[in-house]
């Protein structure tokens, strides 16, 4: 089915790159997004909904941070590591962010190889993405352990407003859950790519759909990073 869809590129209803194209897409029959697979459309809509979840979390965080009665802890002090006797602020989080952004790079390459039906490279790059994701989660686990050992709890912490720990564990936890699910998801899809499942049924778009999810999780991290660690 999607095979036919993909091989009939010549019939593609090429929408002019303009408002007119948008209007014509929305006013024709059958499909609004021409030749977009159902799974892909559905993932986009899901991500829109998930965006609202994260936005609500982050807005709530900003609200409690603004309205709390005790001063907020200073993130550059709380999130610092002592390396070689030096206190380096935000170093761990910088590495984590770097790792996650890199994983978006490998994912994008995997999608590209997926389009070219390159089974081995696609799978390899997806495994690499999952591995980077795993590294991210492990570093996050390390960060949590460190903070907990220093006395941070969701209900209290030694540095200031108790809402600091509450929002920190809740939001990074919710994001970490997304990454963990993503790692499992990517591993499953990569294995299926490797086994040639999509060569047989032609549904290589599955790789791209997984990619959408993964890029989204990375993008959300950028916001969490900015609002939590830099503010």
């Amino acid at each position, binding site marked *: *089915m*999607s095979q*036919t*869809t993909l091989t*009939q590129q010549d*019939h*593609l*209803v090429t929408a002019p790159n303009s408002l007119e194209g948008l209007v014509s897409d*929305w*006013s*024709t*029959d*059958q*499909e*609004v*997004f021409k*030749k*977009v*697979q*159902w*799974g892909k*459309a*559905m993932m986009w*809509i*899901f991500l*829109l*909904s*998930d965006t*609202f*979840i994260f*936005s*609500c*979390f982050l807005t*709530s965080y900003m*609200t*409690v941070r603004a*309205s*709390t*009665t*005790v001063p907020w802890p200073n993130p550059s002090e709380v999130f610092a590591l002592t390396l070689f006797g030096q206190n380096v602020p935000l170093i761990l989080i910088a590495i984590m962010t770097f790792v996650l952004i890199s994983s978006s790079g490998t994912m994008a390459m995997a999608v590209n190889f997926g389009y070219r039906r390159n089974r081995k490279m696609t799978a390899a790059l997806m495994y690499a993405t999952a591995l980077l994701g795993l590294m991210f989660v492990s570093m996050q686990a390390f960060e949590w352990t460190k903070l907990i050992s220093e006395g941070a709890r*969701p*209900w209290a912490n030694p540095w200031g*407003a*108790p*809402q600091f*720990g*509450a*929002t920190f564990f*809740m939001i990074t936890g*919710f994001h970490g859950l997304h990454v963990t699910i993503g790692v499992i998801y990517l591993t499953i899809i990569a294995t299926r790519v490797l086994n040639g499942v999509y060569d047989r049924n032609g549904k290589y778009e599955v790789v791209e759909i997984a990619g959408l999810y993964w890029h989204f999780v990375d993008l959300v991290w950028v916001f969490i990073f900015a609002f939590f660690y830099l503010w």
Partner: protein
Amino acid sequence: MSYSTIAEDTRPLHHPKTWVGKYVWSQDHKVIALQYTITAVSVGLVALVLSGLMRLQLGFPGMIQFITPEAYYQFVTMHGMIMVIYLLTALLLGGFGNYMIPLMIGARDMVFPYVNMLSFWVYLLSVIVLMASFFVPGGPTGAGWTLYPPQAITAGTPGATWGIILMLASLAIFIVAFTMGGLNYVTTVLQARTRGMTLMRMPCTVWGIFVATILGLLAFPALLVAAVMMMLDRLIGTSFFMPSIISMGEPLAHSGGSPILFQHLFWFFGHPEVYIVALPAFGIVSDLISTHARKNIFGYRMMVWAIIIIGGLSFVVWAHHMYVSGMNPYFGFFFATSTLIIAVPTAIKVYNWILTLWRGDIHLRVPMLFAIGFIFTFIHGGLTGLFLGNVSVDVPLSDTYFVVGHFHMVMGVSPILVVFGAIYHWYPKITGRMWNKMLGQLHFWITFIGVYLIYLPMHYLGLLGVPRRYYEMGDTDFVPASAQWANEAITVAALTVGVAQLIFFYNLIHSYFKGPKADPNPWGATSLEWQTPQTPPVHGNWGPTLPTVYRWAYDYSVPGAAQDFIPQNVPPEDMAQDHETRGPAVVEE
């Protein structure tokens, strides 16, 4: 333009062979719709019984021993939450959405039937968790359906031990279920329509459900986040919503949280929720009115745009529920303005319904009676909404029975009337049998007159100052003793209406087995669901080829046509001749 879309894939659907595969673990959107409907109506009956018990207490205080003040709070809470979420949302989207979307847009099923099936089972789980709260120590939560903290989780509120936990868990599970279903509905409408079915040819029913589902996908996240945060406050002692507080003489360990934040999150969900319930009802009622008045819906495009605009605006009015919360008074000005603006597209819709009736060939069949009943109750509830939208009017009326009267009219009774009308309207297609007309009319008149007897006096009680959510009034200076007479009368009416619903259920169940065989298109309707090759439609809906659509859904009483309706799948050249109700074979463009 001729590439084959995924929807046109002719590979056979996976047809289950066993009874369990067909009716229990079914992936057929129609079976899932019925599962949703039956579950929703069943919990709805629980909510109805609870409202009867509350009314007994209010009308005849102390008559029933087991209704203690605590129990009353629990009944109010469970009644409100069940009615809004587990009955109306589930029924209109999970029930009608599932049944109608694929049939009306000419699809074989939802785009992901398996996810659709999971959606139902997860919904069922959420209902079970909710019902379980009746049986845990302390009983269900009595925090009010709005679940405002701090009281929702502090000792002294009934169900603060277990009930609130189960309530929050159940809501989270419901949201997961809704998301799985909702993604399906939206994607199906966007990507799986049949040939010729443009968005602007879809029946209003699909439009209403479609936009409502989008609202749900964007509004439920706020409730989910609020539920997670409250759960953390309750279970591990965070202070998202909990300020420093003294409870039962003891200072609690919480400090620095913001109760107002919860209200913002709750109503950012809660107001769109009103439209999640209302928009499908708007859509359905438009189709009922047009079909039974044998006239095209007046201003179809305007109707569609009104649905979209109402949907958009519904995200910027939420704080009109918070005029008395202590938020910044300037907010009140903004939210009052946006609230009154939303009245404009809403009024357009009402005018258009009435203009559709104007000089129509009105057939007062039972579905039409309910549709017209809806116009009355909706105008009524809408007008009191204009009062409450203004800060200075709302402040004294807030938390009185005026509000109870208002929201029952606008989002309780009105959608329920549409649901009844819709069930009568589509019953012959869904079951292949016809219901009893007399019983249907009896059901309508008792219900319609009954709801006025119930809710009209409530507005008066509210103006007197009778507060909402009170177990009993006791003696006050400002409420005359005669208010109690009104309360008794309301209770009698409420119980009558409640019991009268048995007529409805009897009619449906009896007709299912004994009713006369129904015509495949008894109302002479144009939309696709009436043009299926079989009645009731079978798995896959359309036989070997999908129908092709040539016209909008409202070709009623077209001058020069042989009949007073032209189904959407009749090509222009066939118009003058007689035609079958079946879809013609695919015509290549």
